[in-house]
């Protein structure tokens, strides 16, 4: 999968799940703020990424994923493996 294709897909599934516009999602934006995540909805994000891309995010890895760019890189690196 091309990286831009992945980015578009990530943005689409996040926008649908968390009811925001894809235009609200910018690479440098902070995920928790843009998607208004709390500790409960953070679980939805992790489950969504796992079910959509078959990429598991470990608890220890969550703290390094702050922006959407971080998330794209994280998923892309694991898909590319």
């Amino acid at each position, binding site marked *: 999968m091309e990286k831009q294709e992945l980015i578009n897909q990530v943005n689409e599934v996040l926008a649908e799940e968390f009811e925001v516009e894809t235009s609200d999602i910018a690479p440098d934006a902070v995920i928790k703020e843009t998607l208004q995540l709390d*500790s*409960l909805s*953070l*679980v*939805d994000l*992790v*489950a969504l990424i*796992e*079910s959509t891309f078959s990429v598991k995010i470990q*608890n220890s890895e*969550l703290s390094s994923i702050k922006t959407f760019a971080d998330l794209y890189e994280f998923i892309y690196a694991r898909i590319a493996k």
Partner: protein
Amino acid sequence: MDKPLYKGEEIKKLLNQRAPILMVDTLYEVSDNGATTGLTIEADNFFNLDGQFTEPGLIEHMAQSASAFVGYNAIKSNSSAAPVGYIGEIKNFKLAGRLPKAGDKLLTTVTVQSVVMNITLFTAETKTGDTTVASCQMKLSV
């Protein structure tokens, strides 16, 4: 189905709820990511209304099914008692058909979808026989 792992009074080792709101009476199977539980709906069940088991009872049964899975793993890890868990969220509850009635036997499968920190996302599906009664997603904080 094989011999139950826990049933009757033994189920109290896995759950903190007690009568009249103990809504799981059997733990049939446990795997790495889920469990199968059961409940026979007695005529005097707390959640019955006019002989039918109501939606709050189904949700309580599903939540306790998830708790039974957590309790089983805690006991297997040499914990002295089942942990106290809290329902964080229930969503996508779907009642597939008619409500169960007194005498029906519920069979519920809970499956772990994701675990983040101390919050576990489960899916739950409850059947009577081969017929799906209800399903939902829930988050349990332990």
